């Protein structure tokens, strides 16, 4: 890959990175046929650093790697992004959270499977930033997707000592039984109810 093309490629990568990237991670963005090594990247980063001289952002190197950051001088204006009132969380976010609570460890694909629609990255990101969910491992299937679980901060926020204090499914379903037309348990009603009576964990 030519130096100029490498520089622009790194530019695009750094612009969209969600965390700082060290050189040994940046190398992994390239395929063998790109013939890009650490030294090439180091030089390209230096060139990029010079390019940002006259701009509103700079290339910051921290312990964990390189990341574009806006310059100190403009923080007063940049901060205006967040001057609005807090918004309400969307239905999609709450449903995603509920599934992570009740089905953890769960992958994004599994959430999408149950909800039947795609889960936006923004939702996962918001929940992670709020520190209500975290990645607790990776599933050993192709792509090794991350599995999510709830955190202590989540319990703290909702004043729970443990997930056991979440209402059992039976209670949630009772709301449903008020609306039999939702054909919730028409197929095998007895089995359904029998299992539903169990308190989480308590009978084991």
């Amino acid at each position, binding site marked *: 890959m030519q130096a100029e093309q490498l520089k622009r490629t790194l530019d695009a990568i750094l612009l969209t990175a969600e965390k700082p990237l060290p050189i040994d991670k940046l190398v992994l963005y390239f395929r063998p046929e790109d013939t890009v090594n650490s030294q090439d990247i180091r030089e390209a980063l230096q060139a990029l650093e010079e390019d940002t001289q006259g701009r509103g952002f700079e290339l910051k190197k921290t312990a964990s790697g390189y990341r574009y950051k806006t310059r100190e001088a403009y923080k007063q204006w940049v*901060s205006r992004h967040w001057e609005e009132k807090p918004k309400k969380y969307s239905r999609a976010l709450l449903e995603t959270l509920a599934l992570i609570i*009740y089905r953890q460890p769960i992958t994004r694909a599994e959430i999408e499977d149950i909800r039947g629609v795609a889960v936006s990255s923004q939702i996962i990101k918001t929940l992670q930033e709020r520190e209500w969910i975290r990645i607790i491992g990776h599933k050993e299937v192709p792509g090794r997707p991350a599995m999510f679980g709830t955190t202590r901060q989540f319990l703290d926020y909702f004043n729970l000592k443990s997930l056991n204090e979440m209402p059992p499914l039976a209670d949630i379903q009772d709301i449903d039984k008020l609306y039999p037309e939702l054909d919730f348990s028409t197929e095998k009603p007895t089995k359904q109810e029998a299992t539903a009576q169990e308190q989480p964990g308590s009978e*084991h």
Partner: protein
Amino acid sequence: MQSYPPKQAELPFAIIEGKPLSTPPEDLYIPPQALEVFLDTFEGPLDLLLYLIKRQNLEILDIPIAEVTRQYMDYVEMMRTIKLDLAAEYLVMAALLAEIKSRMLLPRHEETEDEDDPRAELVRRLQEYERFKQAAEAIDKLPRDSRDHWSSQVEPLREQKETPQPQVELHEVLLAFKDILTRADMNISHEIERESLSVRERMSQILATLNADTFTDFHTLFTPEEGRMGVVVTLIALLELLKEKLADIVQSEPYAPIYIQVAQGATDS
């Protein structure tokens, strides 16, 4: 070429650009093994009809209705014999084709010559559908976010100010979950409720404890202070992790210490 005598009663197999064809081309048929994916492949009867027409390189404006109808019926019949859930729309179309066919077989009288070709309405619908089918393909090719380009994620350096976070009540989460349960089919909801929350929670805890590179002693996963209940929950969680192939259990020989590790190749974040 000679002008083709307008005989209504006997349509040739196909007319391509005015030339009558009496033998069908070889590639007329969907291979039988493709039948299984039939309903996924076609977006309804119009789509299937378009397919049949295109496969024969037929002019959409001059569909040999008898032949297309026969093929269409064949598919519908095959679908029914292998008991695929055939959408009602396919049967409605079958009826329509049959009707058009019979109308075309009727001799036309001079006095009704201002009558439209019986195929006209179907052709109009096919053309209309095809336009949107093409439009859909064009839309899919438009460069779009999160596939062809991505928006800037540059880290903002901002003034230290507390931004208030949205407040959430627990019952809102539960209501959201109730919605999922209502929407999800029996199968899924049943699966969800089979497992208890404490086990799920413990599964997460264990997974978070396990280290990718080292083995974790089986015993250290248990906290005797939790009492019998807690130990049992841990054990069930562990078994569940093994069952879902999220963790591996290792014992080098009988009576040797038992170790747990993240499933082969997995790393903790």
